[in-house]
């Protein structure tokens, strides 16, 4: 994947994350079902959350490195 596509993918990953947490998508899971006793919407939210964390971990390694700004000093001392 090119750098540009990767950045685009990262953007839509975050955007779809937002959409998935919002109505109307989230309303799809508001029915009376329980997984291991936990209501389905709660499971949905936490599973999605976990997937987002996993995806973010992947993106954090895949996204390209920036050019150093040239002003960030290694020792960080003024």
């Amino acid at each position, binding site marked *: 994947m090119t750098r540009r596509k990767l950045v685009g993918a990262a953007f839509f990953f975050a955007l779809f994350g937002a959409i998935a947490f919002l109505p109307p998508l989230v309303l799809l899971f508001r029915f009376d079902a329980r997984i291991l*006793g936990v209501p389905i*919407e709660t499971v949905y939210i*936490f599973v999605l959350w976990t997937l*987002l*964390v996993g995806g973010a971990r992947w993106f954090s390694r895949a996204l390209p490195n*920036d*050019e150093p700004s*040239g002003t*960030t000093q290694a020792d960080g001392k*003024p």
Partner: protein
Amino acid sequence: MTLTADLVIATAIAYVGLLFLIAFLGDRHTRDRAGGFLRSPFVYTLSISVYCTSWTFYGAVGSATRNGLEFVTIYLGPTLVFIGWWFILRRLVRISHDQRITSIADLLSSRFGKSSRLAVLVTVLAVIAIAPYIALQLKAITSSIEAIATASEFGRGSLEGWDEVGLALGVAAGMAVFTILFGTRNVDAKEQHHGVVAAIALEAVVKLTALVAVGVFVLYIGGGPEAIFDSAESAGLNIHASDTFGDRWIASLLLAAAAIICLPRQFQVTVVENSDESHLRTASWAFPGYMLLMSLFILPIALFGLTTMPAGSNPDMFTLTLPLAAGQDGLALFAFIGGFSSATSMIILESIALSIMVSNHIVVPIMLRLTSDDGIGNGQGVRRLILNARRLSIILILGLGFAYFYLTRESDALAPIGLISFTGVAQFLPAILAGLFWRDASTKAAIAAVSVGFVIWLWSSLMPSFASSSPMVAMIMEEGPAGIAWLRPQALFGLDRLDPLAHAVFWSLFLNTTVLIVGSLITNQSALEHVQAALFLNVFRRAAGETSPLRGSATADDLFLVARRVLGHGRAVALFSEEAKQARMPWTSLEPSPAFIHRLERELAGSIGAASAHVMLSKVVSGDAVSLEEVMQMADETQQAIEHSQELERTSAELRATAEKLEIANRQLRKVDLQKDEFLSQVSHEVRTPMTAIRAFSEILLSEQDLEMSARKRFTATIHAESLRLTSLLDEILDLSALERGERPWENRPIDAEEPLEQALRVCDALARQNNTLLRAGTRAASARVSADPDRLSQVLINLIANAIKYNGAIKPEVEVRSRLEGTNYVIEVSDNGAGIPPEERPRIFDKFYRGRLGEAAPYGGAGLGLPISREIIMRMSGRLELVPDTHIGACFRVTLPLIVSEPAVQPEKQKI
């Protein structure tokens, strides 16, 4: 139960001591070994989790008991922002490193033309907006101590006689002392506090472990999630999210996303304390993971608490009271320390962040203005001033928090208080996003937008929280101010269908954004705003180090900006790079030396003059009261002056050209004037000769009475002849002058040119006989249509023929007149067999008053105007009159007239000559 209030207070104090030790060691560690473990991305991530305060530790459980799943939005918002770190946070961190940003107020001020007004506004808003949040922490600590004291079998111990308010005051005072000791030991130009960050990271671990421990414990005694949810359902609780995903859900998700960017302490840890941009990569997934872990056990704790705890117990304290109720004192103490950790870390960092803003943007500018230069001349004075300002700010901030706690002590839920603060700080979000992504966002618009959002927040979010303690506020909420219903704080403009939180979020952010957009469209940016906007927008676009303003002292930044403005980008960069090379340090860490400033001044002087360069640089270097913006303006004005003088130069060049044209015109006028003088003298001369004769003869006639009749008659004839000559001369002069000045109406019309020729021949016939001249008719054209005045043409021809007859001089004089059609022209030639015109006279033959030698000699010679007049007339008919060169015998004059090409429809051409 052995846990007492005294014990937990002692533990809390000991814990604070531990934190202090860690902060101290952390500072020494980073000083000695340039970071190491404390600079790892995980410490960075843990410090960001200062976001999870006692609101999370205690309040989330309370929130879950009231609104079910809604509490997760507070963590989902930041999760989304961190997942999208590439687009906002990465920019913020890079910009803040480049521009040496120290706070969120500094960020906005820097982007919007270094506006100090905006910085002050943001600082004031932040301090007010955070007060409820601080109050929340005070309330949580107080409640947790109270919970332990109430449950303790040893009573309140040394807390006897302290009510909740007193306890909160004590906590606030303790926190103030603690924060002052912690955060204001030194002033760092980058505003980084490594020791504090280390302590915060430890607290993050403590609170997470404590909450997870309580969660695991609850799952254990509750028999697993299934059992907990089952018993909650059988206890009549609604475990499904019924109305959860409504307007409140969206509003609090948005607020939380805004808060993770806009909260002063989050900006401090995420952006300002960031020592390596790549740490953000790790935090992008690790911080959402941390929040996920924090949230995982909230619902079970809340449901278990609701089913097992006696009715009426405070759900905000379940995290603490559940272990207490189960007799787990050790776990309860751990839970207390966890809650205490989350509260102290928030209070410490928030007050440090706010105190930096208050001291940098409000106190220091005021003090600098009030004190004389001498007092702050040395670095120590400034240092002490800043530290004292920070200490005062911390006391002020905690005081405000306590005041809010005191005023709202009746309401008991934690989470709603936090959301008020979130709504307040979210008012910065539109300006921040516009600053990052919209070049045209202007300072005036940003100030107006933040102000509008702030006012709406005050009215519809902050004020309603006082309803429980103030009857007046309660009345305003019920009926609106002075009975104006559409101004009711929770139903602005009649919008009463939304949840109060969603209502406040919608109106404040909507109007805030609208004002920002419209305001930016109708206002203009100053020069400095332009520069700063470009720096913010292009933060990743340029090659490394190329346009980045200099690090080192703030003066280097400013010097570069000034140099670039005056010298242009390329030369400024070249100048600074060269200096960096000589100084053998990366030019990004350049400290401008006096020699360099001197050289820079010389360079600037080349562009704007020495005086301006000196004034400008000395103002930048000395950090005078003159702001950079004013210097920029000076540079602009100088530029304008240069342009103005260039314009003057252009104008004077035009003037010179005009003067040259005038000079030429003047020379021509002089020449014409000279010609006129010459003409006048010739005329006088011509007139004088006949006049002299007339005068002489008339005097003789008057004086000599006895003159013979014959003589008298002769003299009279002479006078008559001379006056005739005079009259004709004057006629000719008048005629010529009229022709030349175009005074006479002139009418060319289509005629047959042969007719005037015929007439001229007839007229001259008598003259020819008189002079014994043979007037020979040569070949003739049948007819010729030309556009001419027949009388005038006839006059010219008569003049030519008469001249040929009069000045012939041959023994057998002959004059021949011919005419023919030649191409598109009609040609008439008048030739004679006389002496002709000598070559030296030929060029002058058409001059006024010029008479050939024969003319001079002739008894009644003309005035020498016949030929000039004839030539003028023929020219008026678009023809030519010329002397035919190279005639062997006599002279030959030729008249050429153009024939009319297209036929008779041609209208008489009226021409004013």
